[in-house]
């Protein structure tokens, strides 16, 4: 609903500088700057937006000129996260007066209904907007949210799938759909969402990582091998800061050796490969992890990790 520009990454200390500036002088320009940067970086810091936005708007709205409406909208939305809805109602009234009949403001009204737990009412408002414009992405997503809020996961999944047929490039929506499927224990469907994401951005190491995690959770020799491939590829794409892939590789190796030990008597699945027998990948991964912990200044946590893996290895061998 807010700006359609892509988020600007604002590091935490930069935000803190804005907070300190606003706190120190309480000048309206500092408060405005803080709100502007929070809006651009799309961080959800509602408590800050309300704390500084309300005095900004109540006392200095005239100084903001025509930009003030963006701030009213921003503080309105942030106030929905808090316990005090009187602020929300007040600002919504101001926006309604300024923009009578506006679809954008109707959406804000519906959001207030959501915040107050009136999901059926919100849902009706969104459906009405979708009647007028069936491709209103925001209204469709809020509609999905009302289903989620009412615990109606089936309809949330259905509508998200519908949404993605129209807006198949919306990566957040694919992640959201995967999350909905995971909550229902539908791992295969969740995995297929990540397949779409990998296709859309084959250079993004995170998608391979999540895919590997889901596939590993599904379990079984073939899935552990598949997960191992994807963890390895994720690591190729991001070597420097990819602890999950390192842990994943080690976990896959031990999972595979456990499966093989179990199958040996039954003469089950295909012959184990070199890694599954020797565990070289795991050794490599644990070594890299230890280095990562030392480099981060927490060698003691690295020791816990390393000795934990030692124990896993001896237990996996014991099972033979």
């Amino acid at each position, binding site marked *: 609903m807010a700006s359609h520009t892509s988020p600007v990454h604002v590091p935490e200390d930069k935000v803190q500088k804005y*907070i300190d500036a*606003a*706190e120190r002088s309480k000048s309206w320009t500092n408060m405005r700057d803080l709100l502007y940067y929070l809006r651009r970086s799309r961080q*959800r810091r*509602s*408590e*800050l937006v*309300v*704390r*500084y936005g309300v005095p900004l708007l109540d006392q200095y709205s005239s100084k903001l000129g025509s930009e003030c409406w963006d701030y009213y909208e921003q503080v309105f939305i942030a106030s929905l996260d*808090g*316990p*005090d809805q009187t602020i929300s109602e007040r600002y919504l009234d101001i926006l309604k007066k300024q923009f009578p009949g506006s679809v954008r403001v109707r959406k804000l009204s519906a959001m207030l209904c959501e915040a107050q737990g009136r999901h059926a009412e919100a849902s009706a408002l969104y459906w009405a907007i979708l009647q007028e414009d069936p491709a209103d992405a925001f209204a469709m997503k809020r509609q999905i949210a009302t289903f*989620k*809020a009412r*615990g109606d996961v089936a309809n949330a999944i259905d509508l998200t799938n519908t949404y993605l047929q129209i807006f198949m490039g919306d990566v957040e929506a694919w992640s959201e759909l995967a*999350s909905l499927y*995971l*909550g*229902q*224990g539908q791992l295969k469907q969740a995995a297929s969402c990540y397949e779409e994401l990998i296709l859309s951005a084959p250079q993004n190491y995170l998608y391979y990582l999540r895919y*590997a*995690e*889901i596939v*590993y*959770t599904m*379990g079984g020799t073939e899935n552990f091998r598949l*997960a191992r491939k994807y963890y390895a590829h994720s690591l190729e794409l991001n070597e420097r800061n990819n*602890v*999950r892939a390192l*842990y*994943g590789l*080690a*976990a*896959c190796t031990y999972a595979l050796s456990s499966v093989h030990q179990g199958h040996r008597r039954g003469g089950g699945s295909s012959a184990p490969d070199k890694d599954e027998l020797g565990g070289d990948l795991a050794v490599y991964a644990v070594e890299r992890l230890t280095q*990562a*912990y030392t480099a*981060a*200044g*927490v060698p003691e*946590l*690295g020791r*816990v*990790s390393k*000795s*934990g*893996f030692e*124990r*896993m290895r001896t237990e996996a061998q014991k099972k033979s």
Partner: protein
Amino acid sequence: PNTQHNMSGGGVRLNGVSVVKILLHASRHSYSIVSGVLVGRKGGDNVIVVEDAFPLAHTNVLAPMFEVAMMQIEEYIGKGSQIVGYYCGNELLDDTKPNLITKRIADKIATETPHACLLMIGNRKLGTLSNEVVPFELYSKHGSEWKVSSSSSPSSGSQQVEITDLTVMDKVAVYISSTSSKGAGNKQQPHAPSVVDFDTHFDDVSKDWTNSHINKLVDTK
């Protein structure tokens, strides 16, 4: 006489530090599902004595990270302690039932530790913390299902979930309010201690998943 209907007969007793960690974890990620592991020992009368909590995630828990986290927790707590349960707080305010994944994880823990407990956070109760309300609901395994443990009869005098040091609730209430809009940016308010779960740790290994700073804080009061 008090007949025990459930396997986790004597209920659960939580100490101050575990309660602080659980509630701060839930408050820190109030927009998502949160979960973590409970650690302690079996007391007399089949009571589970929880001595610490290790926050696990603020996303849906998947197997690889779960296994890696469990392995490290077990390594860290050593022989004197064991994993005795799992806690979880759902995303939606009035949803206090364990979902499929939560039950599967609790099952896994229960295979290692019979009578392991599943503690669901009563989300609504987090809004009005006091030292008179226990904001948790205990689930125990009956056969293959997880069911809410019925409260013991009042005459037996024992609650299913007991918090040994209720004064921490006041402290937690103060911490949580410091994150609200009234408290934000207010330097006078004591800041809520940061709480690290494995999700956060895997994004940045310099963050301490043992949260030993909270142990120090609660022990020294």
